[in-house]
């Protein structure tokens, strides 16, 4: 540190004002050129869908450009570069220890940039949070959860945990489990389910819906119905389709499951009989 202070004291005492002016002009011109490059860059990337990679490179370029500009400026004002480089090595080491987490996030951010498990606008689940990706940069990911809370997750955590992206593929499957009385016809139930899917405009006909019996229980039959929809319509479909199924089952007059109530009634009758 003493060496750096000495180097700057030398500048204050020995530097001719002409050199200082040239160095100042160099710095200003450098910044003007940077602004121009930035404008050109903005025009190129403004219509691109995923700007994250481009914007990260822009940041990296700006940092690198400013670093080179600063070094050249120091050279112009006759600062001993050996001292600066020597000091910067110590500085890097100190920053490395102090900024271990941001650097780790930065490196994770670079990995995520190339791996691309999600893009802005996707609905993802990461580190226990589920929501829409609002933005991502080299340090963190910003999400808006479905109950409208902003969450910032450091890239280090994103890379270290599992990420599920529900918007990645254009279509999704909805699985419905339904219980029908074992007195009812399985074929009729299947026809009802298929008919409801056929009439629902959000249900895809391809991949075709699939109906099967998953389990014969003691008092009822458990059936599974698998139907596909587009990922963008999934939430609406998930909310509406089970209601439509239930309405159709009721309309068709299929018997609801009430075996439990029947057993209770039998017990009651048994007790009453024993009293008598």
């Amino acid at each position: 540190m003493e060496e750096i202070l000495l180097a700057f004291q030398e500048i204050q005492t020995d530097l001719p004002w002409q050199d200082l002016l040239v160095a100042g002009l160099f710095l200003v011109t450098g910044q003007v050129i940077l602004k121009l490059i930035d404008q050109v860059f903005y025009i190129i990337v403004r219509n691109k869908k995923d700007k994250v990679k481009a914007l990260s490179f822009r940041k990296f370029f700006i940092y690198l450009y400013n670093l080179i500009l600063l070094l050249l400026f120091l050279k112009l004002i006759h600062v001993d570069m050996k001292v600066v480089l020597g000091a910067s090595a110590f500085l890097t080491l100190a920053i490395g220890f102090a900024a271990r987490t941001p650097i780790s996030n930065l490196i994770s951010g670079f990995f995520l940039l190339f791996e691309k498990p999600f893009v802005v606008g996707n609905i993802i689940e990461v580190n226990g949070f589920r929501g829409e990706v609002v933005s991502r940069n080299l340090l963190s990911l910003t999400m808006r959860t479905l109950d409208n809370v902003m969450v910032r997750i450091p890239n280090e955590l994103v890379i270290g945990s599992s990420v599920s992206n529900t918007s990645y593929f254009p279509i999704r499957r909805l699985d419905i489990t339904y219980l029908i009385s074992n007195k009812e016809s399985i074929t009729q139930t299947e026809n009802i389910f298929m008919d409801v899917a056929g009439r629902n405009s959000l249900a895809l006909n391809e991949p075709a819906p699939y109906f099967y019996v998953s389990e014969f229980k003691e008092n009822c039959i458990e059936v599974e119905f698998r139907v596909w929809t587009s990922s963008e319509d999934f939430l609406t479909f998930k909310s509406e389709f089970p209601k439509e199924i239930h309405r159709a089952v009721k309309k068709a007059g299929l018997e609801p499951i009430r075996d439990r109530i029947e057993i209770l009634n039998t017990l009651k009758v048994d007790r009453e009989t024993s009293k008598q």
Partner: protein
Amino acid sequence: MKRSEAEKLKVFQTVLKMKESESFHLRFGPLDLYIEKIDNEIRVLWMTSNDWMDSSFHYQFPFAGMYPDTLLSEKRFAYSKRAPSLIVAPCLGEKSFVVKPDTTFMVLPGEKAKIYLSTPMSIRLSDAESLQVIDEIPVLHRVKTWFGETPTSGQLCFFTRIHAALKEKNLPFRPHRALTHLYVENSSKKPIPIEKLKIPVNYLTLYQDTRGLFVTSSLSIKINDNEHIKDLKIFLPKNTDVDYTVIQAPREKIPKTLFKSSTEIMR
């Protein structure tokens, strides 16, 4: 409406100049469309019967009747100045259409088939001066489907059941559907069954011929062994008896390789 009356469809090439408080009514297949101009506002009301076989067509301008009591969808467009004159014309869908012929076709080895297919259109409302699109209303309520070998590779498309024919006269005439000529050449050694076809309407141009019929650019594909598409061409329909007027330019620029494998266009 019969095919011989298709001349009436040329009304779509005119500009709709509506005065204040005037209304317009169009019945285009299953679609009932009403447009009303009030001060600085354009009000659009419509409903669709979902009857894909409906072939009715008529229009009334100015429309003096009452709007039906049944549920109508509505949109209103506000303008700072006087509302502009409109161009009301059909357009092709924004996604590919998967069409399923009533019966499966087989194209035998060494054969070349010309298949006539039709896809439902939408009605596009545009500003007559700036040509800016105001809105698009599908003639039929569209159903989505997945066209792909697996749920991970494929494309989300619209679905329609159709009559596919090997002769144009055998295809039932529906004014609200655009006709596409598809040429399939089988250069492989085995027959190619065509159960479903994907028509990439978003890359096609919509024309109206001198008879008033709506047709799209034609498609031609040549299928090699291993189900690879050797040659894909998109071109103006080959009918020297009629001339074509462009109604809608393609929505998207055709990429260098639109389809690599035949499974991307037919299954």
